[in-house]
């Protein structure tokens, strides 16, 4: 009967479809990691949970690669991520390198932050590994613990020693060994609307209480604007909540001998989270379960009085493609104030580390390139651009916009997530965003903190 033929045809078709499916999944790797993924699902080209705090928006179109040297004396490959390092920085570095080694070919390959952990997991363990790589500071520990990176402990002094940014040195150190060299950093600041501040008769807050009062006043004075936020706090933006926890003396987790103890339900953390909850309930018009990817749209729509944001955010706001260049004169920035005047709240420090792959075929050449990337001449470019350089001696040279200056100030008092090789797993299970979303939606702070504590302890203590 004809129905049977159709059914048989379908069966054949489904086999064919299944086969196509598995082709897609095998994209570019034979490692265990992809095998697991392939059998389970098709993550395909979706974006992945590679959260670091520094990614700037970039084009996905790939320009021709920047290279240098002839290649007779070997070849090394440099991977840098996202748009934080402009092309001319890299050209400078490769130029310096080829002055010394004109016969070595250097190939620069720009990577996307999205999915970088998966890409590094497969490429660093392959025979075709890049030589010098950039890692987000929350991602570094996992690779250090896994033995994927070259041990640079005896080179630390030569690379800058005590002049290196301390919190990035911590991210680059595992079990007493130094693998990840600080590259650059970014701290969160508070952006505000100068014109709305003026209209409400407000000045830049100098204490946390003043900040809360300013948010409340802005919300009241702009009640006619729908969705208006005195302070824009979408629930998945857990970095913002960290400052409240830290400034009150709490933390995410504290190390107790060999094990980690969750600290979110300590009285200090609860106080900070409660303060945060009140701020959200009274002044935020942001989606309670949203992320901060659309905050610049809200800012451009005039729906934001203040918002916590990374230092590069003004660039996204005034981007003529989908931002609002007209807003430029109204954007102000300050480091989030602390409990008393003239102090700041600890800010989450995002940033990057550089490392050499343990599988590098030319570790000596890779090291020389790394030396250039951490040299004063190279790092000065970051300071000039308004990014926080990895060398403390250059912090005074940071110039540029108001947000760059505020960022430098915020970085002086900055904190970081627990340094554990298992931290990446905490982020992957999205424990902190889940907690902040629940708290923002009105859940009991102590309950949610206790839940998060036990989940975090379970992961950090393996």
């Amino acid at each position, binding site marked *: 009967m*004809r*129905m*049977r033929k*159709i*059914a048989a045809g*379908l*069966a054949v078709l*489904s086999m064919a479809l299944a086969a196509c499916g*598995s082709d897609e999944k095998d994209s570019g790797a034979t*490692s*265990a*990691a992809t*095998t*697991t*993924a*392939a*059998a*389970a*699902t*098709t*993550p*395909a*080209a*979706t*974006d*992945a*949970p590679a959260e670091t705090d520094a990614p700037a928006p970039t084009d996905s179109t790939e320009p021709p690669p920047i290279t240098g040297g002839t290649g007779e004396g070997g070849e090394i490959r440099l991977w840098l991520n996202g748009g934080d390092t402009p092309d001319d920085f890299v050209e400078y570095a490769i130029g310096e390198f080829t002055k010394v080694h004109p016969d070595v070919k250097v190939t620069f390959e720009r990577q996307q932050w999205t999915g970088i952990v*998966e890409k590094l*997991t497969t490429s*660093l*363990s392959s025979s075709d590994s890049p030589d010098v790589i950039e890692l987000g500071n929350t991602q570094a520990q996992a*690779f250090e*613990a*896994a*033995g*994927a990176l070259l041990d640079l402990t005896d080179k630390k002094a030569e690379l800058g020693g005590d002049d290196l940014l301390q919190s990035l040195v911590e991210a680059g150190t595992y079990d007493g060994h130094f693998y990840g060299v600080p590259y650059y950093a970014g701290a969160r600041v508070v952006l505000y609307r100068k014109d709305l501040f003026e209209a409400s008769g407000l000045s830049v807050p100098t204490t946390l209480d003043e900040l809360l009062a300013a948010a409340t006043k802005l919300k009241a004075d702009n009640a006619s604007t*729908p*969705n208006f936020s005195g302070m824009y706090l979408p629930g998945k933006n857990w970095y913002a909540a960290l400052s409240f926890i830290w400034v009150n003396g709490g933390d995410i987790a504290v190390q107790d001998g060999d094990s980690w103890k969750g600290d979110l339900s300590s009285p200090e953390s609860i106080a900070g989270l409660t303060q945060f909850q009140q701020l959200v309930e009274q002044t935020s*018009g942001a*989606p*309670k*379960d*949203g*992320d901060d990817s*659309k905050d610049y*749209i*809200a800012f451009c729509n005039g729906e934001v009085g203040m918002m916590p944001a990374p230092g590069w955010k003004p660039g996204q706001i005034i981007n003529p493609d989908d931002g609002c260049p007209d807003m430029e004169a109204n954007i102000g920035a300050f480091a989030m104030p602390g409990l008393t005047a003239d102090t700041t709240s600890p800010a989450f420090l995002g940033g990057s580390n550089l490392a050499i792959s*343990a599988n590098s075929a030319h570790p000596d050449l890779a090291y020389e390139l790394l030396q250039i990337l951490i040299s004063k001449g190279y790092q000065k470019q970051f300071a000039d651009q308004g990014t926080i350089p990895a060398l403390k001696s250059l912090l005074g040279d940071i110039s540029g916009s108001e947000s760059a200056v505020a960022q430098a100030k915020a970085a002086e008092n900055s904190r970081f997530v627990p340094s554990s*090789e298992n931290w*990446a*797993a905490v982020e*992957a*299970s*999205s*424990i902190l965003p*889940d907690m902040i*979303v*629940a708290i923002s*939606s009105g859940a009991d702070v102590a309950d949610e903190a206790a839940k998060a504590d036990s989940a975090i302890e379970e*992961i950090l203590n393996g």
Partner: protein
Amino acid sequence: MTRSATLDHAAEPWNDRDMTGSPSTEHPDELAPRRRRVRPLPYALLVPAIAVLGLMLGYPIIRLFTLSIQKFGLKQQFGAAAEWVGFKNFRSILGDDEFWAVLRRTVVFCLVNVALTIALGMAIALLLQRLGKKMRLLTMVGLMLAWSMPALTSTVIWQWIFDTQYGLANWALGRQGESWLSNPLSFYFVATVIVVWMGIPFIAFTLYAGLTQIPQETMEAAAIDGAGPWQRFRDITVPALKPILLILTSLSVLWDFRVFTQVYVLQRAGGITRDTNLLGVYAYRISIGANQFDKGAAVAIVMVVMTVLMTVFYLRSMTKQEEL
């Protein structure tokens, strides 16, 4: 049949069964003597296909199973020796309440989505049959566009439609600020809309193809005998389409059971992750996100086993159907 009967019979492996058992009416006794001379050619011809299948399906499954009985994290990925741990990974997963919650959610989500996809797909197929030429073409083009759109793209667009502040849905309903994703039930509603929307075209096209094969005379005869539209649908259309429906259902079950992109993208946009994980996303978070390739492999093995069981169940009910 244009080829010689001998070749045809030998090339069909299931004839072995007929030869050993009672001779079927189709194949008379002449087959019996051939039983002793094993002919190597047909088997040789099967070798390439089996080799390709073995490489493409067998190797990953064996690798996956090996992973699931080892301790395998990032360290092992970078060359450390992997320790054999027996079924420890399975025990730890099956002993985890979260796994069972995720599994329950996945099964319910899968069943609801399959039922909706098949029902709506059938409705559209019936509609296509009655539409005029122009409208039919228009509908088909629309279905084609929905089908050809990559899952990621359509999910992102649907997520915009349901966006809390700037979404079309809230604007049309006059409910600005209403979060669709924060409550797990409405989260799954949005996910279901996307999955069903993407699943309907294939079902509708295939069922429409099936509908065109049902003899019009049968329908007319039934109508003359006094069968109403519902009776004709229940007693003629559905039984005639049954083999197709069975295959479509089993395919949909396979697809909806391992749904990934839609849930993953929505979780990034809103909602609480631990309350909205489905098995596919859960396995991904464990293996790729947290670098616990061993446990992720164990979850994946459980998924494979469940999928195989479901497939066997459907294929069996289908072959039974054909024996009737």
